[in-house]
């Protein structure tokens, strides 16, 4: 009689790899327990493929249900969830589908899937009361470069070599033309999500670099340097003021 560890290893292989030969002799139930095991195998695949279909709606729209389902099935076999909160599952699906055979004919596919992922994650967020620029009053000017800011939790930043925002908007509008030519174009996108809704806006590259750096925890000084590297004329003071003006800043963190 195998140990419980061995039993679970065998059943895991049956679920993930379809290899039921080792576990089948252990099972009882019905005339053919191996056929009953298919119920669990099917549930694993179907429940996660459904989750992916929900998370990547523009990608499904772009390549169609049939091709998406084939890719999603392969993904869930090779990349099972690592934790029970399925909302956090499949962050690496965009990279997977970008490398899918045939994806070279749609080189923007991975970027569209990335946009799907980021939009979905952003839309789960809530917003916190924003601070005004007055939050900086009383902080000496020479300390400003060392400040860190917390931005709204629903902010995401994405750079792509294709105008995926146009594709996403076509999908959301539901009125895609019969034929659409997509030419390569670098875009720097800011996604702002809150309570089930989201916006998707283009930024200029320096502003994108500044905001992305602030969002990821860089100091204001480091964020400004990243933007100035792209544009020596970048106005960091104005960019900082705009962060407050559009309600993105939720806390000001003084250096330790």
């Amino acid at each position: 009689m195998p140990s419980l560890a061995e039993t679970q290893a065998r059943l895991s292989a049956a679920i993930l790899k379809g290899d039921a030969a080792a576990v089948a002799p252990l099972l009882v139930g019905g005339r053919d327990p191996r056929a009953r095991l298919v119920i669990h195998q099917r549930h694993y695949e179907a429940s996660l493929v459904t989750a992916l279909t929900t998370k990547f709606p523009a990608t499904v729209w772009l390549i169609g249900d049939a091709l998406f389902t084939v890719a999603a099935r392969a993904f869930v076999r090779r990349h099972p969830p690592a934790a029970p909160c399925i909302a956090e599952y499949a962050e690496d699906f965009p990279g997977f589908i970008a490398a899918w055979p045939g994806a070279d004919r749609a080189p923007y596919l991975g970027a569209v899937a990335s946009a799907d992922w980021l939009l979905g994650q952003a839309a789960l967020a809530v917003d916190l009361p924003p601070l005004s620029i007055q939050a900086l009053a009383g902080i000496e000017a020479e300390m400003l470069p060392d400040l860190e800011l917390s931005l709204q939790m629903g902010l995401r930043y994405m750079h792509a070599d294709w105008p995926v925002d146009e594709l996403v908007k076509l999908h959301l509008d539901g009125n895609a033309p019969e034929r659409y030519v997509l030419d390569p174009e670098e875009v720097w996108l800011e996604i702002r999500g809150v309570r089930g809704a989201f916006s998707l806006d283009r930024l200029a590259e320096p502003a994108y670099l500044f905001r992305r750096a602030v969002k990821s925890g860089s100091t204001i000084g480091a964020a400004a340097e990243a933007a100035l590297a792209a544009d020596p004329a970048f106005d960091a003071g104005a960019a900082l003021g705009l962060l407050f003006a559009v309600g993105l800043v939720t806390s000001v963190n003084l250096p330790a």
Partner: protein
Amino acid sequence: MTGTSLTPRPTRAGVGLRLPHLAEVEATRPAAGWLEIHPENFIANPHAREMLQALAADYPISVHTVGVSIGSVGGIDQTHLKRVRALVDLIDPFQVSGHLAWSTHEGDYFNDLLPLPYDEETLRLLATHIDEVQDGLGRAYFVENPSSYVGFGQSTMTEVEFLSELVRRTGCRLLCDVSNIHVSSTNMGYDPIAYIDGLPHDAIGELHLGGFTIEADEGDPTTDVLIDTHAAPIAEEAWGLYAYALRRFGPKPTLIEWDNDLPPFATLLGEAARADRIVAEVFAPEARRAVAG
């Protein structure tokens, strides 16, 4: 294990609150006796959690875990358990439950409730894990009987014997899913009445009712297998077992589960109202006299 909920236990039937119904329920506050949620749907979803917190002020809530995996040989995922505890602390549910099953192996999560052999090795493991979960949550954990399609030849005890021993060793409580008893007894060929009679009545703290789907058994196309899909109305056989369970266990918080192919929320309330009517019939004075006689 210490601590109990300050939320009163409900007397009317409740319904499972799934994300597609959340905004409607938050906006309209329908007359549900109580709401049951899966914490895994809320832990990583701040927007949903915010709405749930508002609902917790108006409804008794039960937290029904689907990912704690008390049966995994790899142990309890402490990170996940702490996230469940944080949600529990936020909404103070009247109880917290999970499944007699396992769903993780070597870092992979199967999004399913997989079967266990019922023997001493499994019993020792689950007793240890239930102690960990109850300590981690700071309250009693209610363990639900599974829906089964297969079992293990190496089992040395029945499911009822296994559950009873778990209760004795850990002090955990039981969540009796009446529909699961119907599904499993049909699929595995045992007597559902004997199963209910065998459960430790004092440990039963909640009843579940959910719909199933009938398929031809691929291994024997002349027979059917019942799939616990929670995607259909509750079957008449399950309603009948529910009335029997009520007579054996007394009135308990009862949940209507519907997780897939969701109907309008009003349909769930209709099923809950039927459960309430059955409680009223079973515990009407004439019925009590008939049972006593």
